[in-house]
């Protein structure tokens, strides 16, 4: 079923919307949750919560890109679950490594929150991401949006893991500079 039809089902409050979403994007959302949470029971719950939140959000929302809309929900749910758990109980996902890398973008432990609202930061990151050349942007997002492992990204883009790590390191440097020059940090 195409996305427009699935969205219509949500708007009509037809519960088949959830079944169709699960059939079309279940694997995609599970992969996102798995990247963040690792091999835990939480993955299944995060994906189930995704359908519930989508049901709450549509209407009034009418997603432009249903796949990314659902993926974003799964990402948020999984991230919040991970944050709520004690560090030693967190699953074996990629989140810890990803957060460690992103910490490099904030020099000297600067407190981003003190200077910037989340929304402003999102806007800044949006402009940064938009301006990257297509392939670099995709690699950056595979790591920091989808929380994929370096090995997985390397396989996806036909590169070596070392080349992906080097590229990500440079992109983090660019992001740090961008945030500094823009006065965000």
């Amino acid at each position: 079923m195409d996305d427009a039809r699935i969205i219509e089902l949500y708007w009509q409050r037809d519960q088949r919307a959830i079944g169709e979403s699960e059939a079309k994007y279940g694997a995609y959302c599970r992969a996102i949750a798995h990247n963040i949470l690792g091999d835990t029971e939480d993955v299944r719950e995060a994906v189930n919560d995704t359908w519930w939140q989508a049901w709450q959000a549509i209407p009034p929302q009418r997603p432009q890109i249903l796949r990314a809309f659902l993926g974003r929900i799964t990402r948020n749910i999984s991230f919040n679950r991970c944050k709520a758990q004690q560090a030693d109980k967190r699953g074996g996902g990629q989140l810890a490594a990803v957060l460690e890398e992103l910490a490099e973008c904030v020099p000297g432990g600067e407190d981003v929150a003190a200077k910037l609202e989340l929304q402003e930061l999102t806007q800044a990151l949006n402009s940064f991401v938009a301006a990257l050349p297509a392939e670099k942007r995709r690699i950056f997002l595979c790591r920091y949006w989808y929380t994929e492992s370096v090995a997985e990204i390397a396989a996806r883009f036909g590169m070596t893991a070392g080349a992906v790590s080097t590229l990500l390191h440079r992109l983090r440097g660019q992001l740090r500079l961008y945030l500094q020059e823009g006065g965000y940090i």
Partner: protein
Amino acid sequence: MRQAELIYEALGGIDERWPADAHRRPKRHFAAKAALLAACLLLMILVPTIGDILAPKGGVGWWQDEKLPLDIFEYNGTYYEVVPTTDSRTLRDFALPQQITPDMVGQALGWPNATHGTQEETQLYLYQPYEHIRTDTDGELRAQRAVMIAERGGVYSYALFCNFIPFDSNTHQEMSEMLAVYGIDEAADIAEVRIGSRGYTEAADIAYIYEVLQDSISMGNDSFQQLIFGPLDTEEARQTFSIELAESALEMELITTEGVVARNISYYPQIGYISWALNYYQLDKQL
């Protein structure tokens, strides 16, 4: 770690089209890219003072574009030019009606940031007649972004796509991304191609042109300057060649089957390049 968490969380809120696009299969043109790399290496060996030749003077850089619009705003990483309904010439060029009625105003998108021109608050809407247009990029459906509606103080204008916001002077987009802006993801989406004074409407011609465009190698301004003007010895030679290129350039237009018009594309037959919205595309065949 709190700061890193904040960045991670903020990334989750970026424009959905970027994560949607991230899983696209990368296009590989190994031979062509290897040739480009070889050309760059050769250039680095032959020209020791590379800094000099990277200077914009003499090139056809985007900052020299006299067509740069004056009333621009930024929305989700993209620049749009506001075109009032009184600008009949531009509207004719883009095949847009000279009146915007309420039924032509689609879904509200938000408030973009003014960049040049008026500081008056602008509300952005989808352009309803094009609202159904989608490109299927590896299973991802993306809406056209070529034409939107901008509303200021109850007055509607068109907002036409200019370019994606450049991060640096070598930023570039792949051809498929540019075409997707206009709702084109296959040759069958194009009804007509105009190159200079010639128009092509035959399916075979369009399929050929589409294939050449899709197979092009994208690059930013720095790379283009390096490749085209780098080998020239003197500033004068670069200036002369730049003028020659500009004079021989052919304007190109794509008109989709849905009636969306892509303009401001320059084709340089002498060197086999296209420039479009701050991007340069090296073609492997002549158009």
